[in-house]
């Protein structure tokens, strides 16, 4: 008799307990479920989200294949790992309306960077921030024109050596961020100030003027952003030999992909003086924001804040100039 009672209790507990447990573990019924998938098999599901200024957006994240990570472009929110077979909950709050991009920060294949979605935030902010116009737009620069340098240093210029020369060689008071190091070198070379200096020493002065335009903190930030977002293609040493580079070239030589002619398909080699010293902050910045438009270089405009782009640009010069 007793055993039978006990069995009935067991059945009862099971029948009532299971749905109850399911409800309780889903602590947040109104949270939106967001699935991560490699870009080749669909990317984020759903690919666009909406939210309202000042209203928390709750998300439950999981991955359908490999490890991904969720981050919102131009926001201070730290990236959240999105793991297969696991649910992670997060709450977002926006104080500026606009069209945000959410994206994956863990490399999940050659098309990893295409794993992006949009997040439309509506409403009005107490204080509207107007975005600044990037320099390449203001100056109407042609980002796709090749920019070789006629002059190259015989060894890697060093800002420290330049500083040791004891000359004032800062860039013009309002930093002319559209000027290339090659032009700057020619300017300095023809100045009477550098009469007694060798060509290499003038290059050291150029390195110094680029270094004096940034800070150690900004370089450190740029280095970190570079390692996470760029090194897989451009290489940890900046030589354009990143681990993804071979796969990238393969996808780009697929038939049907229209290349207009002058693009380099291999990721740029930032240590190549001939091809970089003719560029400028404005060109690097423009390339990062706008991307290569079909060359395989992603566009980072919706991802990074203008400070982050500047940090990256400053760091890219360290492949040309020693500190």
């Amino acid at each position: 008799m007793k055993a039978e009672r006990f069995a009935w209790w067991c059945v009862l507990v099971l029948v009532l307990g299971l749905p109850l447990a399911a409800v309780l573990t889903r602590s947040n019924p109104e949270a939106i479920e967001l699935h991560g998938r490699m870009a080749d098999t669909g990317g984020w599901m759903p690919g666009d989200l909406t939210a309202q200024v000042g209203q928390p957006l709750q998300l439950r994240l999981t991955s359908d294949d490999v490890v991904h990570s969720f981050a919102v472009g131009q926001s201070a929110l730290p990236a959240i790992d999105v793991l297969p077979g696991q649910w992670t909950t997060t709450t977002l709050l926006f104080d500026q309306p606009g069209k945000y991009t959410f994206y994956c920060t863990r490399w999940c294949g050659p098309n990893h960077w295409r794993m992006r979605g949009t997040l439309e935030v509506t409403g009005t902010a107490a204080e509207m921030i107007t975005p600044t116009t990037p320099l390449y737009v203001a100056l109407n620069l042609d980002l796709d024109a090749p920019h070789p340098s006629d002059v190259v240093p015989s060894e890697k210029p060093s800002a420290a050596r330049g500083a040791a020369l004891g000359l004032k060689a800062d860039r013009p008071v309002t930093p002319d961020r559209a000027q290339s190091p090659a032009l700057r070198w020619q300017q300095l070379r023809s100045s009477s100030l550098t009469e007694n200096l060798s060509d290499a020493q003038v290059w050291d002065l150029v390195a110094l003027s680029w270094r004096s335009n940034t800070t150690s903190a900004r370089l450190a930030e740029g280095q970190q952003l570079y390692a996470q977002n760029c090194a897989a293609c451009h290489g940890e040493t900046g030589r354009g030999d990143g681990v993804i580079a071979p796969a990238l070239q393969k996808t780009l030589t697929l038939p049907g992909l229209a290349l207009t002619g002058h693009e380099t398909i291999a990721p740029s080699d930032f240590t190549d003086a001939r091809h970089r010293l003719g560029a400028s902050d404005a060109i690097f910045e423009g390339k990062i924001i706008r991307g290569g438009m079909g060359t395989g270089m992603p566009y980072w405009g919706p991802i990074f804040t203008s400070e982050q782009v500047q940090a990256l640009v400053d760091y890219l010069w360290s492949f040309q100039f020693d500190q």
Partner: protein
Amino acid sequence: MDLIRTRLSLPLLFIGLSALAIVMAPNPIALAAPAARHFRIEASSFQYTPAAIHVNPGDQVTIDLVATDVVHGLYIDGYDLNLTADPGQTASLSFSADRSGSFRFRCSVTCGALHPFMIGKLNVGANDLLWRAIGLGLLAISASVWIRPHSGRAPTPGCAPRTSVDDVA
């Protein structure tokens, strides 16, 4: 009878001693001075290159893990060490190989369909057991070839090896 026994036990003694030597002899490689060893392991879906690394006990081992397509990991059984590398961000790990034997390492990051099969091996010390087993096997073969003719019925002095089967029976 006595004669047979002495004739038999001398080679037996020799074989026994050899067997003992094979089993107990210190491994000359294991005595090598510990050194710093550096390995670069490339992880791609779904394999490690190289898939096996050999070190000597006591070596200071450094492993650079380079993920070439997606995020991969490397977990070494027995040493309980874990490493995760994102493409573009080489990850490094250093440890002292103070436990000898053969240890599996496996990917610790879900990296796709064949992820569970992404494995490799860390060998600390030469594969002693294998070599000793081969030594014992060879010894057994030569012993059987040698003893057989000696254990014959007739203690013929200076006997030539005879191979007929009924001899043994």
